[in-house]
């Protein structure tokens, strides 16, 4: 390790010369240590704490971005959200229900398929070939994958319909619109979860599995009784991160279905974007975003608690 011996700590030598005891030294020591966090703290305050406080202020006003302000309306934007007859209330809960449908389909599949694939790769030769290939779509952008799937899933002459010799209205009719969005999303992000589960599988002691096999347990038995319990913590982590990621669904409906048919794939984030940046209703939109953030934090902390308690 290269340490330059010629450079002395200026603080220490200065304090020692004055000889004013530990208190001064400790103060300078503490301060100089604190300085290391300053660049981060400045960014943290400017681009996370300030927006949160600013968001509270915006949500209490009928904020118009073109004017850069608006009249104070108190909690009106929030109380609106709990009345289904209002525009934002209606859109919030419709978006919430739509997003919930997506989460309920994608999260179980984003756990089961990667688990299955990770186990297959773990138990087969050519690991270093299969793992990167299946991981690959994760590095692509949401916009790239939606552009490609939008092309693949065209009803007229779309390559997918051609391969399966069908005429399925993928992007324009329900339930196909949800199936399309789920298909693209799972194709895109299963590699991410697979890599995490695979790493957990490699941590299982080989002797444990060997012992089970000598006792006559078949492949399925080993999987169900040895593998699953050993990776359960990782699986609950996967559920939490997949739920959060799925809940933030935005690019796929915006770019694949435009929220259609009949707003049935309008996700919560998409509604918030529409209200804020197309209708310029930033006050109500911020209230929607905050309520969504609170719900998301509650759901993920419940999931986290539940998965921890089972240990």
């Amino acid at each position, binding site marked *: 390790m290269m340490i330059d011996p010629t450079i002395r700590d200026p603080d220490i030598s200065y304090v020692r010369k004055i000889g004013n005891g530990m208190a001064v030294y400790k103060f300078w020591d503490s301060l100089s240590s604190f300085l290391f966090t300053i660049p*981060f703290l400045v960014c943290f305050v400017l681009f996370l704490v300030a927006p949160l406080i600013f968001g509270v202020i915006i949500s209490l006003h009928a904020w118009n971005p073109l004017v850069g302000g608006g009249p104070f309306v108190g909690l009106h934007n929030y109380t609106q959200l709990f009345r289904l007859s209002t525009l934002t209330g209606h859109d919030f809960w419709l978006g919430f229900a739509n997003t919930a449908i997506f989460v309920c389909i994608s999260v179980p599949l984003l756990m089961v398929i990667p688990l299955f694939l990770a186990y297959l790769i773990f138990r087969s030769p050519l690991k270093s070939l299969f793992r990167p290939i299946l991981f690959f779509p994760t590095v692509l*952008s949401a916009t790239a994958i939606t552009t490609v799937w939008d092309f693949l899933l065209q009803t007229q002459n779309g390559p997918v319909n051609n391969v399966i010799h069908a005429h399925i209205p993928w992007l324009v009719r329900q339930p196909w619109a949800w199936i399309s969005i789920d298909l693209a999303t799972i194709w895109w992000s299963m590699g991410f979860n697979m890599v995490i589960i695979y790493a957990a599988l490699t941590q299982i002691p080989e002797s444990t599995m060997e012992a089970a096999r000598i006792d006559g347990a078949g492949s399925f038995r080993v999987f169900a009784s040895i593998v699953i319990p050993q990776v359960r913590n990782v699986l609950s982590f996967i559920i939490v991160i997949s739920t959060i990621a799925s809940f933030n669904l935005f690019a796929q409906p915006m770019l694949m279905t435009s929220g259609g048919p009949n707003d049935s794939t309008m996700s919560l984030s998409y509604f918030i974007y529409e209200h804020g940046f197309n209708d310029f209703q930033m006050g109500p939109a911020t209230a929607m975003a905050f309520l969504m953030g609170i719900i998301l934090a509650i759901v993920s902390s419940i999931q986290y608690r539940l998965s921890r308690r089972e240990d």
Partner: protein
Amino acid sequence: MLTGRRSTNMIKIFVLIAACVITLFPVAWMISTAFTPNGEAFSSIIPAHATIGNFITLFGLRDQFPIIRWLCNSLLVATCTAVLVTLIDSLAAFALARLRFWGRKVIFNMVIVSLVVPFIALLIPLYVEFAKYNLIDSYWALILPYTSNAFGVFLLYQFFIGIPNELQEAAVMDGANKLIIWKNIFLPLSTPATATLALLTFMNVYNDFFWPLVATTSTPMRTLTVGVQVVSVSQYSTNYPLLMTATLISVIPMVIAFLFTQRQLMQGVVMTGIK
């Protein structure tokens, strides 16, 4: 017994090959369509009349579709952010993990709590904040919001905690100050974690869609993800060969990054799962 094991191995490999084919099928279509003349899109995965005409057309549309400019924007923004985040987070994580100072616990708890704040809650206030200082549609707006990256601090914190104390003590004995200790001991030793953080940050920023969508308004300031979508969807929505050409160009940097750093990338993904 041996034949039984061999046949199950065959089944496993068969299933995995099928999974790989499904994974690569859309990518293959994207590439082939990029080399297909406009009239012949959809016809076959192997273009009958392969052409680079789409690339020529695309580069010719310099005003409506400045894809090289967008590519440069994306690369610039992602690189700057990755460097900034790594530097800022490394300094902060070093102090939190290895130094004693007043307020250390408070800052650490703030970092942890902020991990649950979803981006959607910050979207509109961040926009209003940048609009207030006339910074919308600038590189500042595209880079700065990513620098409050608490996840990076947490990741490096966990790495720094694991470095043996003896190294730090020996350096203090030799009279090295904290900055020297960080620069000469912790930064070199944490290269795997730091490189991973830089790589993941680069990937996330390069691929981000939501923030650049609202943070930019003029065509030349768009990043690739937004530019290809906003312009293409409004003007070239049925010209699939042109869209696939633009998409292909947009994924090339990430494909190169993936080919050279797949190990670190997958390692990085695993590190996000460590608690």
